[in-house]
């Protein structure tokens, strides 16, 4: 390397130094250390002790029996697989309707976006109150239309069993309350869709209209394909974020996954294992397993993305 380029590289190193130091101390080291500790028993008080794959064996066992870890894995999957697709559908629908020339567009946009600037701590306090089975507003409104009031954050019921709800068993439970909360905060995603919709060339719609395509076909054959890269991005980011959701879950579940472990998600379980039960090795094993699953899912999504994501200018 010439002297000049050498000098330039040194300058670059100086500019990068803060980030680089942080990268090694706060990312690379912790990343490796937690893998190392996942093979140890470590309670922070006595020195770590090598236990081989015992922590992972325990995870496998709990997964099969559906105990703590199994329950947490189920709760996390339930929350992620319900909240992410529903947010995409809701976010895209709102954005598409806003992109038509409706009256009061700016006002609607503000109203839909506002909930997503409400801090998670505040929105959790608010939704605990709204979804209170007796005194809450939501169940009151349901009772006005003659529908039974679900138990929400006091219930272990699981949603999607709508028939149970109509049968009067209060089919919405704690996790469904969390999903509802996440839908209320959909504004962030909506803004991204709106920006993407603005980038679709109007000629495409004009041409389709001349060819006699109705609104449904224009949506199906122009809007959706043109939005698909952004939808894909939000699907991946949404899943990763849903698996890491913590604050709102901690608050509505009194920090323990209440009631009866129905909101014990993986991030909460890792936190409790590490800092309540001082089982750092076991907690590290869960964290690593979650990480591996996230990577696997992300890679799988990217591998299949060419089948349904339309990349403009990518050629055929």
């Amino acid at each position, binding site marked *: 390397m010439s002297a000049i380029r050498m000098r330039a590289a040194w300058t670059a190193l100086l500019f990068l130094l803060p980030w680089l130091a942080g990268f090694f101390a706060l990312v690379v080291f*912790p990343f490796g250390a937690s893998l190392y500790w996942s093979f140890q028993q470590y309670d922070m008080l006595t020195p770590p002790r090598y236990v081989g794959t015992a922590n992972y064996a325990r995870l496998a066992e709990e997964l099969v029996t559906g105990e703590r870890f199994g329950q947490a894995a189920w709760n996390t999957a339930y929350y992620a697989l319900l909240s992410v697709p529903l947010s995409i559908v809701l976010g895209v629908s709102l954005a598409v309707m806003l992109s*038509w*020339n409706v009256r009061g567009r700016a006002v609607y946009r503000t109203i839909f976006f*506002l909930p997503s*600037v409400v801090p998670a701590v505040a929105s959790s306090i608010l939704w605990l109150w709204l979804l209170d089975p007796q005194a809450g*507003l939501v169940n009151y409104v349901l009772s006005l239309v003659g529908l039974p009031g679900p138990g929400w954050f006091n219930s272990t019921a699981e949603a999607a069993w709508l028939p149970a709800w109509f049968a009067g068993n209060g089919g919405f439970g704690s996790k469904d309350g969390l999903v509802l909360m996440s839908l*209320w905060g959909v504004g962030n995603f909506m803004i991204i869709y709106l920006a993407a919709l603005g980038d679709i060339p109007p000629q495409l719609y004009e041409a389709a209209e001349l060819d006699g395509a109705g609104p449904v076909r224009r949506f199906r054959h122009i809007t959706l394909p043109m939005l698909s890269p952004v939808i894909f991005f939000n699907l991946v980011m949404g899943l990763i974020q849903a698996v890491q959701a913590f604050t709102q879950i901690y608050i509505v579940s009194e920090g323990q996954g209440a009631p009866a472990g129905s909101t014990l998600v993986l*991030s909460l379980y890792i936190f409790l294992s590490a800092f309540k039960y001082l089982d750092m090795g076991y907690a590290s094993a869960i964290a690593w397993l979650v990480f591996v699953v996230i990577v696997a899912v992300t890679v799988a999504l990217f591998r299949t993305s060419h089948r349904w994501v339309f990349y403009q200018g990518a050629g055929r």
Partner: protein
Amino acid sequence: MNRKRRTTWWAQAILAVAAALFATPLVWMLLTSFKPAEQIAADPHRVLPVEWRAANYVEAVTTMPYFRYLRNSLLLCAGSVVGTLWSCSLAAYAFTRLRWPMRNQVFGVMVATMLLPWHVTMIPRFLLLRELGLYNTLGALIVPTFFGEAFSIFLLRQFFLTIPEEISEAARLDGCSEWRIFWRIMLPLARPALATVALFQFIASWNDFNGPLLYLNDPSRFPLAYGLEQFVSSYSSQTNLLMASAVLFTLPMVLLFFFAQRTFIRGIATTGMKG
């Protein structure tokens, strides 16, 4: 045009209903925060307060050490914003304006760290910061921001790329040092992007709950987000006070949104559109 109107009347109706549903929780929070406790106990569903009780707010900020929490929150936000701007703009400059081996590969690695879930690094990070004597200080939350963070670096880099290379090139030919180009030319030009990063970091620190939960145990050091949660567990029956404190905690974010709407939207759109 005529046909377009016909397709939008039902959209208009759906949007109106949806807007009402989205707005109701916030309206309910405001209304509840003004209700007397007796009203909530006796008739929780009555929409308007029987008497508008602004004293709820006074009670909320006096039953918890509100101003202490607020002071801690502001310290945390200010420190983190300074840290992030400093470390991330330096790195973003190196990623856009300086030439060095493997630059793009290193950038790729940095972007990949954005996808790293926080729990994977949580425990060793905690032990490390505790070793450094930062446990139970706001420093545990502020110091890491001085070491850069992928999301903000990415955002700044995207903006730096839009500034014409010729400007820094000309300064370089005039014998300007890299530091002066960065400090005197790039940063002033990048003001809008710096504002976006500062805004996002301010919000992140204001809202941060995990950090204080992990690192702080002395109530006199709690920021609002965590102090408020403590308040929930001890005063869960006083809904009106809870709502008043939640309103106070939310208000700065809403105001920021209204005053910095364009900065907000630009930030979200830049980061969301890279997909």
